[in-house]
């Protein structure tokens, strides 16, 4: 699948030392992303979504360390590049819009200052050219009257506007891949819709590959081509949206689905609760990390003793890390 992929990641792992011993926050993660494709990454808090992409960009905060894996950008391994070249890749190759739009901008510099700094660090442009480019991308993210806004400080903009500025900075250098980490979580639903429409539009205009990290399954359905579900540092399921979404082949994904209130289901339908607590990475069970909470595997001997690998199910585009996935389909057929 990595043929023609703009970004391919294989067996990426990241470890943090802790009092309780080494904690593997990213545990053998593999995925690939095509040009113009959107991959959604979902999973509960702490499952390793952000850390996976910080690892891809080699921005893991110390004492954390990437301990292995390959990261291919347009076929070339960037995992071993020297730091100077990696700086160039970040921005022009892979750009990331970070989780918290309110702290991602420096309050003491204007929007323009910050954009120009990024642009000039990556190009040979004169200040005048860089400013023209900044205005062009601000316009592109639909900031009204960019020539006025460019000299504003971040606090003069609403949350939705700040998020647009961050997106503008991320796309200024026409990256091959845009990673948007919970781009709309801090925003209202109505503004959320505007930002996501904007991202979708930019993706097709610029032909970027896009990674959308989110815990909103509704956004996944609307904007993604494929989804990767993470649990306890691993990818436990990945499938094309059209085939697999809602017809999941992993008990965790299934439970996740049934636990959210939805406007398209009867209002009084009770929510299914995922039993227990999110996993403690320092004390993972020997077998499947989801086993203590799994409706299907709970108590099964093999679930407790063997850590399942991510393997193809009925198609080699729909992978699951649950060897008992067939039982989910049988239950469906029986129902």
């Amino acid at each position: 699948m990595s043929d023609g992929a703009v970004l391919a990641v294989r067996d990426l792992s990241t470890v943090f030392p802790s009092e309780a011993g080494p904690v593997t926050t990213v545990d053998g993660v593999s995925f690939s992303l095509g040009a113009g494709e959107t991959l959604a990454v979902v999973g509960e808090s702490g499952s390793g979504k952000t850390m996976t992409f910080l690892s891809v960009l080699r921005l893991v905060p110390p004492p954390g360390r990437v301990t292995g894996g390959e990261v291919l950008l347009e076929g070339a391994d960037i995992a071993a590049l020297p730091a100077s070249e990696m700086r160039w890749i970040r921005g022009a190759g892979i750009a990331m819009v970070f989780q918290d739009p309110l702290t991602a901008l420096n309050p003491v510099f204007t929007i323009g200052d910050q954009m120009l700094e990024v642009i000039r660090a990556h190009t040979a442009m004169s200040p005048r050219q860089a400013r023209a480019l900044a205005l062009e991308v601000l316009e592109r993210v639909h900031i009204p009257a960019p020539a006025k806004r460019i000299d504003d400080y971040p606090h003069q903009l609403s949350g939705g506007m700040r998020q647009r500025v961050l997106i503008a900075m991320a796309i200024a250098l026409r990256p091959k891949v845009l990673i948007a980490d919970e781009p709309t979580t801090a925003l209202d639903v109505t503004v959320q819709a505007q930002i996501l429409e904007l991202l979708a539009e930019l993706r097709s205009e610029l032909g970027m590959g896009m990674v959308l990290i989110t815990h909103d399954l509704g956004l996944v359905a609307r904007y993604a081509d494929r989804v990767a579900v993470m649990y306890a540092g691993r990818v436990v399921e990945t499938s094309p949206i059209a085939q697999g979404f809602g017809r999941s082949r992993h008990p965790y994904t299934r439970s996740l689905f049934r636990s959210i209130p939805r406007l398209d289901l009867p209002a009084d339908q009770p929510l299914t609760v995922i039993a227990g607590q999110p996993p403690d990475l320092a004390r993972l069970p020997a077998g499947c990390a989801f086993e203590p909470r799994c409706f299907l595997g709970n108590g099964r001997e093999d679930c407790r003793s063997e850590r399942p690998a991510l393997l193809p199910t009925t198609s080699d585009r729909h992978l699951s890390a649950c060897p008992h996935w067939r039982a989910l389909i049988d239950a469906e057929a029986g129902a």
Partner: protein
Amino acid sequence: MKPPADARSGGGEPLLRVEGLSKTFHDRRLFSRAGGAGVRAVDSVSFSLAAGETLGVVGETGSGKSTLGRLVLRLVEPSAGRIRFNGEDITALSQRQLRRMRQQVQMIFQDPYGSLDPRMSVGAIVAEPMIVHGLWHGGRDDRVLEVMRQVGLQAEHRNRYPHEFSGGQRQRIGIARAMALQPKLLVLDEPVSALDVSIQAQIINLLRELQQQADLGFLFIAHDLAVVRHVSNRVAVMYLGEIVEIGPRDALYSSPMHPYTVSLLSAVPVPTVDRERGRDRVVLHGEIGSATNLPSGCRFHPRCYKARLKAENPDVETVESQGERLPAACVLHQPRPVDAGDGHVAICHFPERGGDRSEVAVRAVESSRGAG
């Protein structure tokens, strides 16, 4: 979390009745810019709430939801209006006289991290309100344990500290603390917004059980329309300090009258591919409004699709506003309440109802229900 409570509130006084409640904040630093007008965070809000009933409150950030919740507890002093609790006017009570009311009305906050004292053990956190209200005559340990059990915490948790718990468990601690005084009304300000989806369902189900056991009234504030629909009997939609629409849950979600409600429904993503893909959404004009500088006429007019549809009708008188033509009514006159019966009310000159229901409104509802 029970059948619509309109019938139940038929006789006698409701648990809570709020009339014309307003709050204007005067931030000193604002005087120069806003000419001292201040922030009209809550503007002439009226509603009632019965025992055992849940009134959901939705609206975008800054619309005044939290301020409304705090007003009800008198944690914020109203600028105008009345609050009646159990038939008693509590608007003018002194802080000392409020004590009794405070036992019966408790608040649960969004942030399970920030709202618990990190230096207190869980047992002490749960016991504190009883001590404060003079209900602690030794031997109440059993009450602490009982409440902890009620919310799904274990007895051995009592000697631990908040940082030793996950977000969902911390929210349980906050709920246990609120329940310790056996309140009649809970004001829940985004109680599940900070929690993981897998944990949200646990807390929602817990709240539902507690409500049924004690016939509690809930004022449930949230910005997630699906969550609010799941828990509420009635729903109020706020926009820039006003309740622009209120009504029984099913009526509001199936026949929303206010264009802002329609826009909200249209923006909610539904996690089903086939439905989600074909969906047109009403992408709102402009950014979130500001309560320091309220638009004239209907405060939603700078962002309203319906006003723009109406402006194309030659029979509708229009005026120039910010470079476009909009209905004069919307730009110049504050709309009046329109009552569809059954307590379903919206304030709009051109409500989405009957023959005037736009295609946009029809599609927004269909697609949000997965029928599109």
